[in-house]
């Protein structure tokens, strides 16, 4: 038996097809890209504005559900629904922010978490609007229009381009992978650009000491709201991509766990580093999804448990030994606290 035979197990029970299952890794890449997007928004809020925003899953849910509802129930085109859904998410972000921005860090975290959970409960219970626990996928009857029809068209087009370029048989998720990461790169460059501006400087001042910034004539509330709004918009797109990836929208996909995982990505990459987020996201998901290949006879729920355990332990170890993450600066952690 050669070592490439799937039945042969390496130490820890990892099988070698770990490295060769391209369909699987494409999926991981998409997830990493989606979480990179969420964490980019978080970086703006937490790393640069000092707002511990725990409502990320809520932004995603509002974005995804709004888009699907606009397409399926209101009958708008996919391309029109996207920007509208993004506006709804921004509106939600402002709604969340306005009353709670003056709260201190852990209270703000709780408030934003509670609002995200409220969105999820509404999604779970308002059956007629959101499909309840069944989720949203296609219009009533199952055979009607699906919200990702427009996407399927785009996806096929991209596949065509790839084949023209010589890629013989791309996995079905490759177009999504490409689009997501183009988005991630665009968002990273965009965020870095605005971060280096005087506007970004005010944000950092808000992070350091809001009273000092106010005393120098800066209207801190407006800046914080803008930070939240941008994060909500990016989160909405993360929601859209998740909806396309899973081909369904379920309340369970927007549990607090998503936000916690995003924070894991954030601190792994390091606070106050946008590029760090990208690397953190890829590393995070490679490790997490890599657990699937551990063939120690564990069942599904146990592997899922292992995953949570890994994330939890990583968070703790990072916070204890290297709070600045991979690419953050030590001074940034030490001087601030």
């Amino acid at each position, binding site marked *: 038996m050669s070592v490439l035979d799937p039945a042969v197990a390496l130490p820890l029970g990892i099988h070698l097809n770990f490295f060769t299952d391209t369909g699987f890794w494409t999926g991981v890449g998409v997830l990493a890209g989606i979480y990179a997007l969420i964490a980019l928004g978080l970086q703006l809020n*937490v790393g640069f504005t000092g707002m*511990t925003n725990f409502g990320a899953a809520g932004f995603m849910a509002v974005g995804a559900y709004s888009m699907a509802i606009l397409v399926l129930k209101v009958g708008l085109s996919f391309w029109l629904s996207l920007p509208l859904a993004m506006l709804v998410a921004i509106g939600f972000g402002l709604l969340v922010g306005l*009353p*709670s921005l003056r*709260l*201190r*860090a*852990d*209270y703000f*975290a*709780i*408030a934003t*978490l*509670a*609002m995200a*959970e*409220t969105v999820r*409960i*509404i999604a779970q*219970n308002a059956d007629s609007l959101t499909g309840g626990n069944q989720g949203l996928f296609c219009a009533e009857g199952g055979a009607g229009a699906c919200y990702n029809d427009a996407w399927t068209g785009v996806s096929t087009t991209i596949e065509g381009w790839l084949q023209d370029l010589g890629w013989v048989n791309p996995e079905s998720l490759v177009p999504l992978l490409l689009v997501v990461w183009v988005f991630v790169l665009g968002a990273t460059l965009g965020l870095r650009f605005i971060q280096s501006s005087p506007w970004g400087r005010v944000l950092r001042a808000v992070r350091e000491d809001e009273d000092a910034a106010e005393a120098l004539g800066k209207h801190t509330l407006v800046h914080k709201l803008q930070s939240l709004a941008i994060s909500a918009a990016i989160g909405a797109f993360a929601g859209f991509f998740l909806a396309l990836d899973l081909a369904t929208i379920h309340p369970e996909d927007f549990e*607090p766990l998503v936000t*916690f995982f995003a*924070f894991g990505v954030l*601190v792994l990459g390091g606070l106050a580093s946008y590029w760090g987020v990208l690397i953190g996201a890829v590393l995070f998901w490679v490790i997490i999804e890599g657990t699937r290949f551990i063939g120690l006879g564990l*069942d599904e*729920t*146990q592997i*899922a*448990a*292992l*995953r*949570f*355990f890994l*994330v*939890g*332990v*990583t*968070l*703790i170890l*990072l*916070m*204890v030994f290297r*709070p600045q993450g991979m690419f953050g600066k030590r001074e940034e*952690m030490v001087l*601030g*606290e």
Partner: protein
Amino acid sequence: MEARSLTLGVEESPWRRLRDAADRRPALAALIVLGAVLLVMIVAKGVHDVAQSSVNGLSLGAIYALGAIGLTLVYGILKLVNFAHGDFLTFGAYMAYLVNVTWGLPLVIAIPFAMATTAALGVAFEVVLWRPMRNRHAGLLQLLLTSIGLALVIRSVVQYFWSTDIRLLDVDTTTTVNFLGLLIGRMQLIVIGIGFVVIIAIGLMLRRTLLGKRMRALADDLDLAETAGVDTSRVIIYTWVFAGALAGLAGVLDASVTSLSPNFGFDLLLPIFAAVILGGIGDAYGSLAGGLLLGIVTEWSTLYIDSKWKIAVGFVALIAALIVRPQGIFGKAKAI
């Protein structure tokens, strides 16, 4: 030059006077409002329905109160709300499951076991994690993320060994008791009984014993207590013992009237936060009152809205409390 006693713009309107009075006697004000609501509801829905849902409210409230008091005591030590607290409830419930179902012993043994093991867990984390981080002057964000990591770790261990299947404790949930014309589940009555006995015991302990006073002092202001010469490291350990034991108890009680799953403790966390904040953070009695209040209001809400929305009541209460009065009903207006 004569002193001018001009106090423009500070006319005492009757509304303002009412608010000031409520500020001074918040407990009384809350009771009056509660009583008024109760009366309105009895008129609207009838005594029977209101009484039934009030009983449910007391059992839920007892669970919230037991969870909340641990959280608020620990807040004084950590200086932040512990996101892992909900998973202490989960852990306690599963420890009870181990004793009650797996080993087949009665609940009377399962409960102390659950309380003891959860207390031990709390102390272990304090020694291994929280104390070293405090000594290193870890910041708020660091501690916050650590508590989340801890929550995930506890939950994952539970899930690893007991999977995501919904489990039930080996208790009699079908027998009902006829109490003043109401049909109340026997188990629910036991929960209310145990809950209230413990709450009263805790309340007395906090007021009468030296340890209790010290715990309350710590919860209110750790640094001040330290300068006052209190041996904080010992009191901190005791506080974790209490917080852990009460959380474990709350978990078992909840599990005995509903069910167990790895997530259930975390699901209770937000309402417990609400109870803590309503009662005023760091205020032990406040959290007891806040928990009971929240439990009752949550159950009363089912008289008006579909019970699937019940959980949302806790969230809405939390958000409202944070926005309108973050120092809680009973708290002083501290800067939040």
